Structure formats: C-alpha cells, structure tokens
C-alpha cells in the first residue's frame, strides 16, 4: 500500500497547534517513515497538492486567504480534521467578533479601510466580517479540540488514521483549552 499522504495547514491561529504537532518529537521521524508529509508550513511546498489523504487544519477562517486555502484543502483531501480550538469553535481568533469589522478598519486605516484587499490585484486578503470555525465554511470529518491539543492526542489520532480507522475520542480526551 502506498504511504498515506498527510498535510498540515494553518489559517487564523497562533501556530501553537503546529508547535504541539512538533512536540511529537522523535515520533515525527517515525511518522515520516509511515506517512508522507506533502504540505506544511514547515516545508517549502507553496501550493496545496492534489490527492491528500489527511489534513490537519489549524486556526479559524479570519480572512479571504484562509477561506481560499481551506476550500482548496477540502477539494483535494479525503479526511479533513479541525485541529485545535480555533479551528473547532473560533476560540481566541474569534474574540474580535464583538467588534464591527468595517468600523474597526476605518478606525485603523481611515477611509481606505473599506477597500483593503477588495481589489483582485491586491496582495492582501480581505478580512472576514466574522471569524468562523472551519466547519462553517466546509464539511469537516473529525474534530480535535484543545488549545493546543496535546501531542499524545495528536499521535493517537494520526496512528488511528494510519491504521485505517476514524479516531473516536473518549470523553476524557475531549477537552477544550
């Protein structure tokens, strides 16, 4: 059997979930023996590849770049996992949702605020009006909560997937924060 093709991606988050992934430590090397990591911010692959088996997605949808990447991931991935509280429920990234976006942009940038990122030629993404957990944008196959999820839990989920099972988390393992 071919190796499982694994991706990790980050949207609007603090990269703490990825740091917890790196806390797999020596298990990262085992992982690389059993799965092929094909896309990740710790790699130089700039475009999301086709035919990915499993993707761990950190962070919420905070801007149009996040949305676009998430949609690309969904279209090219068999099992998409909401990785960490920001992806699962918005968490800290969504704390700005109480503030009106356009008002906030106007306060910061003046009149140009409402145009930011709106031109197709702009290098900047446009901010979402409300930060969204990823299942509000695409279908999510599994949820892995935690801020960040503990490395042992990440390992449990990945090894289950490598064995061909969809991981089921016990009540003990299902914790936020």
């Amino acid at each position, binding site marked *: 059997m071919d190796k499982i093709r694994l991706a990790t991606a980050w949207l609007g988050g603090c*990269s*703490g979930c990825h740091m917890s992934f790196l806390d797999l430590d020596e298990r990262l*090397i085992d992982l*690389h023996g059993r799965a092929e990591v094909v896309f990740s911010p710790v790699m130089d692959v700039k475009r999301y590849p086709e035919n990915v088996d499993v993707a761990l997605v950190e962070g919420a949808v*905070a801007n149009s770049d996040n949305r676009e990447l998430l949609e690309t991931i969904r279209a090219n991935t068999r099992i998409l996992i909401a990785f960490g509280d920001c992806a699962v429920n918005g*968490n800290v990234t969504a704390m700005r949702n109480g503030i009106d976006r356009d008002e906030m942009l106007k306060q910061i940038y003046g009149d140009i605020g409402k145009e930011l990122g709106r031109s197709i*030629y702009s290098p900047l993404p446009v901010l979402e009006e409300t930060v969204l957990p990823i299942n509000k944008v695409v279908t999510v196959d599994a949820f892995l909560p935690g801020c960040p999820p503990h*490395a042992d839990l990440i390992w449990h989920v990945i090894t289950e997937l490598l064995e061909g099972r969809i991981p089921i988390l016990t009540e003990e393992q299902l914790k936020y924060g």
Partner: protein
Amino acid sequence: MAKPTRQITIDPVTRIEGHAKITIHFNDQGAVEDARIHITEFRGFEKFCEGRLVWEMPGITSRICGICPVSHLLTSAKAGDDILAVEIPKTAENLRRVLNLAQWVQSHALSFFHLSAPDLLLGFDAAPEKRNIFGLAEAHPEFARKGIRLRKFGQEVIEDLGGRKIHPVYAVPGGVRAPLSVETRDKILAGLPEAYDITSMGLEYIKAFIETNHGKLDVFGNFPSLFMGHVTAEGALEYYDGFLRVVDSGGNIVADMLDPKKYNDYISEKVEDWSYLKFPYYEPLGYPQGNYRVGPLARLNVCSHTGSPKSDKELLVFKQMAGTRNVVLNSFYYHYARMLEVLFALERMEELLTDPDTVNQEDYRARAFSNKPHGVGACEAPRGTLFHNYTVGRDGVIKHVDMVIATGQNNLSMNRAIRQIAMHYISDPETEITEGILNRIEAGIRCFDPCLSCSTHAIGRMPMQVQYIGPDGTPLRTKRR
C-alpha cells in the same frame, strides 16, 4: 527594448512563523529595484483585550503566539505586577527566569534545527520538497534527532514548571502559580548534560559552516545599524529584567541604563506606505538613521559579557570569527548568536536551579488588588525586546493596551536584508531567477526568525499600501493611506 516593469511574488514565505508574502520589484531596465515583505495576517488583540481583567491578560496574550507564549505570559505578568504595585518574591522571580530560559532553548532550537538547518546541511539549492526537517532526518538522521531532542528538553522544562508545553498558565501578576519541588528540579538538572552536548554540536556546526562559506554570506543583511537589548546594571547579558542599552555599528554605547518602562520616550514608530507593519526606530537619531536591530545578534552586540563562564568564552570566539572586536553587522550571524544564547540559557538555568531560593519555597506569589492605573512590562523574548503596556480602571478592568513586539522592531532590517540579497543575486537583468535564488531571499528572512503571529497581534496604526497590478504584471496604480 527595455523590459516592462514586473514583479515576482513569493507566496507564502515558508519555514517561518506566520503568514507573509515577499515581492521583488524590477525597474524598466529589468534590474531589481526593491524587495518587500508583506504581512498578511491581522488579529486585533489590543482591541478585544479591552474590558478583560488584568489577571486574565497573561492567559489571553500568550495566545498571540504558540512559539513564544512564555514571553507574552511573563511580560504580561510583569505589567500586572506593576499595576498591583507589588514586588514579587525572589522564588517567583527565579522560577519565571527558569521558565523563560527553557523557552529560549526550545524556540532557538526550532529556528536553528527545524527551520534553518535544512538550508545549511542540504544546501540552498536542494530540492524544495526535501528542504525541511523530514528531509534533514533522512539525510542526517543523527543531527535532526539531536535538534529535536534539544527542543524537547526546553519544552519539557516548561511543562515541568507550568503543567503544559504550550500556553502554560504559570506566571500571574504577583508571582507564579506553583513552587518547584526538589524532585522536579533534579529531573531538569539530569537533562542538562545532553542539552549541553547538542548545543556544542550546533555551535561547532555553525562555526564550521561560516568558515567554509566565508565570503558567500556577506550579503545576508550585512549593514550598519543600531542594536538594542537588555543588560544588567553591570552590562551583562540579561533576558528577564534590567535596563536597555543601545549601541551603534562601531560598538559605541549610544544610550545606557534606559528604563524599559519608559520605552515611549525613546522608541517611535514610523509609518511607511507599503507595509502592514510599523517601523520602530530609536527616536533621538530620527528616521531612518535610528534603525536598530533586536534579538540574539543585537543582544550579543550590546552586552559587554554574558556573566557565565562557558558562554563568555564563546562570546570572544564569536567576535573573533566575525573579524571584529566591536559589534557584528552581518545578519547571518543571528544563527550563530542563537546557538550561543542556548549555551548561555543552559548555564543560567543550571545556576538558578542550584540556587536555594528557587526550590521548595513557600513564598511564590504576592497578592494585591489593582493599585495603579497604569503598568508596563518589558522582557527580552527570543526574537527581541517585548513591551506590554496596560491602562486599567480601579477594578483592574483593561481600558487600553499597547504592545511593541520583538519582530516588528526588525521590520526595517528584514526589508534591508532581502533587498540586499535580491540585488546581489539578480544583479544582471538577464539572470535566470531560479528557485534557489528565491530560497536565498527567504533565507534572509529566516536569519531574523520572525514571529509573524506576534507581529500581527496589533490593531492600531498600521500603514498601508495597496498596489494594483495589471494582468501582465504591470502596476497600474498605487493607493496609499
């Protein structure tokens, strides 16, 4: 015929901590005119923290960044100490310092081994799909494994103290949440010999690399600037407390024993019309002469000594290798400085852990209500000096937040570095722009180990340029704030 004006975009910049794009701009003759790093993230912490309690701030602001949460935790707790108007117990200070040093080890190990070593060991021109920690583990398994273990050591010390590796809720205004037992102390001490070994390996590696590539590294952000960092009252290397010192590119002390709480008096921020990020500068020298660098290289440049024997010896070697008795100007030396700082962190950690004040003391937290309307915390973070500045109501509810972030202060320098690299490697308009050249430009950014999750916490005062580029790559018009 002159080539049309064009632009190349590197999107996203990878193996850095956060979201960014780089653009390289060419003039009518086809030569590089400029290179810029654009930060595409926006988070709004300063705004949504309004209305929270000062006691909650360490827990919230550590979520600014998953790589250096400890720096935000400590800086926030220090701003809280100021608002409570308390002096924290000696034990609490020692334990906060140990936590901070542990973060130094993990964060620098990440930057050196996981993110930058692939360029150093596999080569800037190696196949992009191999140029990462996994490719490194295939080609140099021992080296990669050791790098992973060094980071793990730092993360485990954070967990030993704070109960978790990432976002520990350990420091609070007034002190820390728990004492350190003798058993845990001994466990940490037992891990030190291996950590020292790996650090020496890293140091020897980067020295040999610089020696072998002598002459080829002179364009990685090699320019005069000011440098700023904390020092002790004696001028020794300092991360947690102390005073700020500014030196110039000749090694002369421009300002010394500055009170970090008064950062607003000597640091100003310039708005450039082409970046999301502000450009801090040293106010008395004006802009852009007041351009200063922060972080590992800057700290080794400003301190007169480290104050610990092993790292002091290495500091002399460091300056000799750079061919100077004064300050080192080449940003490539950030990598070297990073490993030297890990050595210092381990030495200081050992000193603190064997200090009787650190272990098993009852007195580790002072309690008080909010006693002052205003508080500032400052610390060195792995990437440079970090400031949190809070205004609160009588009840400790936050009214206003201002933060100056380490990476932001290197903004001007990062842009200068990538411009230097781009101009060097694409000096001739006919040059074929290979993937390897683009990777070198990204590598210029990696010298600074920017933490963009941190830099983009802010909501306020970010300048802006929107450039409209036609379908053929020609900029049509530029809209400025």
